[in-house]
């Protein structure tokens, strides 16, 4: 893993592109599955779990792996592909998990919403809105109790801010000066409900109330998001207490599934277009090319495509779990 100081736009670009392409592969896979379904052909090796895509929101996820060390930990939500890959999670194990295979990062038990990579400090995701926020606070508590200089980051959406649990987490972290960086990805919607119809307060003000540095950045510039995150992570790591980062970015596809939802409720085509014009990956690619790094861009693209193709093959060729595996892992006996 890159040291925080030397991260380059290329690094961020590659990580963001990996996330984008991985999810596009899921989109393609679903399209293929739907085609087979229509043709009434059997679905072997299918993704059969609800997938919440983060296409358009990659900037924050890409920054995670560079602003944090592998010993730092994150926790995520139903929309966790990006966080998992961003933190350095194993791509093959993720794809295998989506396909429900024994080689999946959660042995096929969790699926898309419950990605885990303990070695890389991705300690799991909850499909209960705000459910994993206190877990990150507890991880930070463990660091403090042990005198470790690590940081814990709960990744949450704008919707999770409405759970009282989130404020309990702010208060407790501030009170104990815990090394937590709350990463709130505001994509303006919870399902189809706009944030303005659910909240009255700018999200960083919630953090500021508890005296923590709280910053809002737009997720359209990879480096800016990284720098903002990096700074808050250093703050938390130095023992000064928690911090909050809001990253605003638009979800291009529907809340769940792989189709767009443009036109539903308040989600207009204009809104989507405006955000697509600010695509952080396109911007990074342009910037790299402008800097004369066109060849690097091409090699990154090739590497990412190859990795994803390999991961898909791995996932499809892996065996599904044996039925008896259903009764395993309840009590972590198979701890690795």
């Amino acid at each position, binding site marked *: 893993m890159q040291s925080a100081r030397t991260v380059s736009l290329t690094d961020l670009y590659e990580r963001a592109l990996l996330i984008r392409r991985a999810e596009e592969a899921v989109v393609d896979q679903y399209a293929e599955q739907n085609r087979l379904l229509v043709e009434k052909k059997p679905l072997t090796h299918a993704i059969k779990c609800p997938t919440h895509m983060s296409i358009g929101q990659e900037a924050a996820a890409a920054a995670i792996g560079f602003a944090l060390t592998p010993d730092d930990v994150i926790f995520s939500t139903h929309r966790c592909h990006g966080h998992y890959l961003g933190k350095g999670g194993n791509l093959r194990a993720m794809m295998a998990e989506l396909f429900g295979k024994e080689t999946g990062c959660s042995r096929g038990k969790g699926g898309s919403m419950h990605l885990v990579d303990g070695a890389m400090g991705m300690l799991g995701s909850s499909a209960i809105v705000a459910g994993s926020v206190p877990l990150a606070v507890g991880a930070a508590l463990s660091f403090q109790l042990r005198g470790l200089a690590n940081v814990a980051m709960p990744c949450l959406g704008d919707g999770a801010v409405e759970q009282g649990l989130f404020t309990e987490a702010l208060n407790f972290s501030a009170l104990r000066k815990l090394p937590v960086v709350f990463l709130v990805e505001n994509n303006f919607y919870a399902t189809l409900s706009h944030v303005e119809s659910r909240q009255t307060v700018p999200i960083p003000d919630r953090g500021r109330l508890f005296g923590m540095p709280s910053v809002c950045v737009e997720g359209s510039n990879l480096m800016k998001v990284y720098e903002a995150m990096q700074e808050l992570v250093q703050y938390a790591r130095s023992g000064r207490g928690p911090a909050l980062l809001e990253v605003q970015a638009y979800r291009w596809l529907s809340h769940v599934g792989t189709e767009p939802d443009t036109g539903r409720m308040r989600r207009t085509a204009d809104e989507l277009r405006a955000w697509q014009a600010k695509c952080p990956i396109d911007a990074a690619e342009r910037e790299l090319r402008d800097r004369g790094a066109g060849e690097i861009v091409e090699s990154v693209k090739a590497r990412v495509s190859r990795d994803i193709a390999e991961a898909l093959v791995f996932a499809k060729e892996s065996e599904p*779990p044996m039925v008896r595996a259903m009764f395993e892992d309840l009590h972590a006996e198979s701890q690795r």
Partner: protein
Amino acid sequence: MSRVLSFADAISEATCQALERDASVFVMGVGVDDSGGIFGTTNEAYARFGDARVFDTPISEQLTTGAAIGAALCGMRPILVHARNDFLLLTLDQIANHAAKWSYMSGGRLKCPIVIRGIIGRGWGQAAQHSQSLHAVVAHFPGLHVLMPSCARDAKGLLLAALEGDTPTVIIEHRWSYGLREEVPAEYFVEPIGKARVARVGADCTVVAASFMVTEALRAADQAAALGIDLEVIDLRTIRPWDVETVCASVRKTGRLIVADPGWGHFGLASEVSAVVAEREFSSLRAAVRRIALPDVPTPCAPVLEAAYYPVAADVLRVARELCGAELAALQSHFVASDATANGHAKPFAGAF
């Protein structure tokens, strides 16, 4: 007048009729105004009554549950909707420590007529946190009514009954029942709370089931009949209070009992029914009561595991055969594990939920 309606449409119709009849009824919850309309159960209400009566809420389930209680204490009749009954766990303090106890703690001076709807998810790898059947947890608490309709008619009649009553009520609906269609009276009507429904009359063995397990039990009964085993299927409909009399009367007739529960076995509905019947009808029982419930693990995601996870008609039939001692070898092959297509869904799941 009566037409064929889906379970989802029956809920929608009941909701609209309640909103029409009673100005104190309103609907709230995360996404009730969404174009999806909680799987088609709230969008007509939203379209007709607007957001003065049908409104979205922040994702603050504990607050909205308490707010429903407070509004009810002031004379309203809220319907609070959760797209998954799993979210009830966030609100159990409000449900069980507050709604369930407010009337009692006030010596009957106050009443709290709230209705909370929560849906059981199943299938397409929704995994552990979005597919529980938490009826047993709620039904442990005196002061509540807990309903589990299994068919369109009851989905309408029980929702309307809950809205008429003065007891805080939790209705747990199964997502796989949503596509089931049957004749439903068009006019306003109520089904009695606390009364089970004999869904199929039989002589050899009683199957007490709830929610989607009624569908499985009826399917099993069809197959069993072809093989000379006559199953009586009782749809509990109300889980608290459940209809001990109807069940015991059936067991007195058949002498055998299977309880088919869509939830976990331990400390669950199947244990409750089994214990009470075994206590009351010890001498009527010709064999031990048999319980069918989920395996004692959370819901796994992988398709192979999920398919193996849920008990289906074949399981009911196998247990019935064991209980009745009939010779039905090689029968299992008639059945495949239920899938979404087989179970009341208009079209197969072709994507994420």
